[in-house]
């Protein structure tokens, strides 16, 4: 009899739990079963009237039903709590398209970023980063670079003078002699920095940036130059970058070359950046003229070297698709903002 009653209670309660709608009804169901006058409580109380034989059997059965129903109640309760949490979270939702707060970052200048990148590349390759004065002597800027006073090669650069022998450096090459005087081969140096020329038009700024590289050791050749520049350019513009040499003239290198770099924009197919040629004229380079080594006290019979120099403004233009050199020194935030 009790057995049937228990099964009945179990079935009824399961149904009620299943169909309950909220924590409150669930609680009412709990009281109805397990409360002071709950059905299971009453049945448990009636245990003492049972025979010794029946008591353990019925007791076990009651426990089974109790734990079953407690489980069901717990499950349902968790379900409701979960539901409630979901509702709460849903109500707390925000419009994620609202603007962010208080973490507006600025941006580095594109030329400074090119300098950062190139110096990292070159330091990795064993170059030391050096600097020289922007106001230089005629000696370091010209004479030590095999450009004597009143020599026609001075015409290659319109120079700003302070006085007869003091000038604004027209090339970062000015730093070569200063370093050669104090360093012992083998050495590799780069020098990034500002340079000045007395010209100002739509494609020339009187102030611009160059990076000079110099390597001196025994038996340095044009092939070494090719190898080193290829590595640097690949690291700067991407693995598929290639370079090409063309003859040129600089008083401080012999042979002298212009180095064309495959256009990183179109990969050599031809585009507006490279004016359809697929190549960009980016560097001047060459084998250090033995006269230049000798002027700075390096034995040109034992040592040779290569040097390269390139325009960082142009490099920054290529890397960032900038088409107006004037933007660099205006510092308009509308320009800088685009390179965050």
């Amino acid at each position: 009899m009790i057995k049937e009653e228990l099964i009945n209670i179990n079935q009824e309660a399961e149904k009620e739990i299943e169909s309950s709608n909220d924590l409150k009804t669930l609680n009412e169901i709990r009281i109805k079963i397990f409360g002071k006058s709950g059905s299971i409580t009453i049945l448990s109380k009636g245990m003492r009237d049972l025979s010794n034989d029946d008591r353990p059997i019925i007791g076990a059965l009651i426990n089974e039903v109790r734990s079953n129903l407690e489980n069901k109640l717990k499950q349902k309760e968790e379900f409701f709590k979960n539901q409630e949490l979901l509702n709460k979270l849903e109500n707390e939702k925000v419009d994620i398209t609202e603007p962010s707060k208080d973490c507006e970052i600025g941006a580095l200048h594109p030329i400074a970023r090119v300098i950062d990148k190139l110096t990292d590349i070159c330091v990795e390759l064993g170059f030391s980063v050096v600097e020289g004065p922007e106001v230089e002597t005629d000696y370091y800027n010209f004479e030590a670079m095999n450009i004597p006073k009143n020599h026609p090669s001075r015409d290659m650069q319109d120079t700003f003078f302070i006085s007869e022998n003091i000038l604004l450096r027209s090339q970062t090459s000015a730093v070569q002699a200063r370093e050669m005087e104090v360093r012992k081969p083998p050495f590799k140096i780069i020098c990034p920095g500002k340079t000045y020329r007395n010209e100002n038009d739509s494609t020339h700024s009187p102030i611009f940036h160059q990076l000079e590289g110099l390597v001196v050791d025994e038996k340095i050749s044009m092939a070494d130059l090719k190898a080193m520049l290829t590595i640097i350019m690949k690291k700067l513009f991407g693995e598929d970058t290639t370079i090409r040499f063309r003859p040129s003239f600089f008083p401080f290198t012999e042979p002298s070359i212009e180095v064309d770099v495959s256009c990183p924009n179109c990969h050599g197919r031809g585009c507006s950046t490279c004016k359809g040629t697929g190549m960009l004229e980016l560097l001047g380079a060459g084998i250090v003229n033995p006269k230049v080594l000798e002027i700075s006290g390096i034995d040109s019979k034992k040592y040779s070297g290569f040097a390269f120099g390139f325009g960082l403004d142009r490099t920054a233009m290529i890397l960032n698709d900038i088409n107006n050199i004037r933007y660099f020194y205006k510092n308009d935030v509308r320009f800088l903002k685009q390179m965050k």
Partner: protein
Amino acid sequence: MKVTYNWLKELTDINVPAEELASKLTSAGMEVEEIIYQNEHLHDVVVGKILKIEKHPQADRLVVCQVDIGKEIVQIITAATNVFEGAVVPVSLPGADLVNGVKIQKAKMRGVESCGMFCSGQELGIDENYFEGAGVDGILILPNDMKIGTPIDQALMLNDIIFDIGITPNRADCMSVVGIAREVCALYGIKLKKINLNYDIDIYSKETVRDFVNVDVETQNCYRYMAAAITNLKIERSPLWLRARLNAVGIKPINNMVDITNYVLIEMGQPLHAFDGEHIGGKQIVVRQAKFGEKITALNHNTYDLDESVMVIADENKPMVIAGVIGGMDSCINNETSTCVLEGAVFDLKSIRVTSRKFGVRTDSSARYEKGVNIANAEVGIARALHLVSSLKCGKVVRGIIDIATKKNESRKVIGSIDKINEILGVEIPTKDMVSILNNLGIETTLQGRNLICNVPPFREDIENDNDLAEEIIRLYGYDVYDKIDYKLFKNAYITEGCPHPRLNLERAFRNMLVMKGFYENISYTLVSQDMTNKLLLNDERTNLVKLANPISEDISCLRSSLAHSLFQNVSYNLSVGNKNLKLFECGRTFISKSSNELPIENNYLGMVACDENFDFFYLKGIIELLLNKTSATYELVRSSEPYLHPGIAADIIIDKVKVGSFGKIHPLVAENYDIPHNVFYGEINTGILAQLPEKKFHVQNISKFPIVERDLAIVVDEEIKVGDLISSIKSSCGKLYYDVKLFDIYRNANIGENKKSLAFNIKLSDMEKTLTDEEVSQIVNKILKSLTYKYGATLR
């Protein structure tokens, strides 16, 4: 340097498409910057003859012409008034596309068909100097003997191809057609043709050149002076072929004698000067330095004051020519000249360069002299000119040539090492190719063991050593050998240690921090206007600006002595274009002049500026602290005396008694000078000094096992009491229990009293040995308060 293809063909046996030649020249270092086809706009224009002219039935101002153009007769309507029956004229036919943009089509004019147009000289791109009649206002009337139907480019010799070549300063020898021709020969392995230097001498006259002129060279700047004389000169227009050559390379034809000197200048690279023999005073030429006070009126109609630095060609009285640069009016050839003295000279290149700069006069002559004309060239130049004089029958060449040379002209022997050349190039060039390349360049080369014995001709003064030979060899052998080289070949100098630059590294860290704080990096012109010192109210050494001797303009004539100027200008500019909430910074140099003859002091600074409504002094202070905290600096802040900062709202940063920077609110007067708001904040730190500090080291102390306890304390003090002093006092009262103290609120209100402020501190205490009890904490707080009351009159709030 412009050369024409026909001219090159006259000196070499070259006959390849112009584009191919141009690309070959470029690949060998003679960069062809432009190829100009002279007849680009002359197609469909022919020589025609007007057979008949009738009035236009519908228009008074037009006439209808029947024109013979060789293969047919066409009808052309014109408004031109200088045409007549029988006139030979240039006729542009349908399809023509003239230099002024006019495209010719068949058209009806007032109902009558017109099949073309007659052309003026201007429409053909020529002027009176080039062709008689080309300058008239109207149609170009051609000579009667021109063959009807001839294309006009042929008839007027306007069918050449011009190469505009960039010549590098080491190749003065290529400032001539013959120089380029030599390169062409070397490129194609062909021989330079012999240039005709023969001329007839007036053997019937007993006169010699000495009867017309005597030459004295009194200056060391003249290496060679040659003079020839020509009599019975008949000044007239040069033949068309000569004018065509000069016109093609951009030189205005003038008369036969002047044209010959220009022709030789372009062809041989030898400047010549033709004097009117009757205007050489005393028949005496003196090559000398000018005397102070002498003057000359040059062919450009300017009068120049001369001095001892200027070399002149003078007669017995006065300078006639600024040597190598420009001739004088008085002694030049004119239409009546009958006797001419022809000068072919070689001058010191520096002397010519200095003079050309001094007067700002650059001529075809000075351009060549200042790059260097070799001694031998004067001789061939004079001979070539006399050849032209005699073959064009402009006059009679007098017996004898004066030749005064102070320098000798010799080939030099340069011995090149094959192994060294290969070592420089890093690739093996076959020896036989080396020898043939050098020989083709006119450098007679023979092989002796592993050496190249090179006989370098005088015009190649640039060839001195293995490196020079290596360059000649590789540029003609072709730089494309390197295209095939594996880039991993680099073998040498790889064991060097790469050292970053300490200051650049520190600046990089600063720059990245500022970017995270919303600042934009600027790079400004270091060149500024002189008024920067006034605008910034500077009163110290920073008023000693480094000034350019040759500025482009006043606004970029000095080097800045402070970054503040650049950044204030950038703020001003950005505001003017509508950018707001500006936070900008720049790493760059400032310059302070010592004297114009020594290098200035260059300092590296990081400057930052903010013009932002949320910004104030303490925000800026936080950023400064953030940056300084990156270094090992221990610094103190003192009230700043920077003239461009607000005296009450600015601080100087001091490390070891040295000022390394300052920051604060901009001075209101400075704000007005830059036309920027008053609430602009500026700070700068000397990164050069900071980079010299040792690297920041940390000494970590043991931390307590017991929790931190904290208490808040609010006090009221007089306004002038400094928070910094209160914090120090609190610290010392805490003794070894001190962990941290922070000011978290400042409150000012009438109810706490006039000139009073309420300050709330959060104090953190910690003991290494035990958990502090409430009582112990209260004791400390009482001690703090007592001390604050005693020293600073603080009262508990």
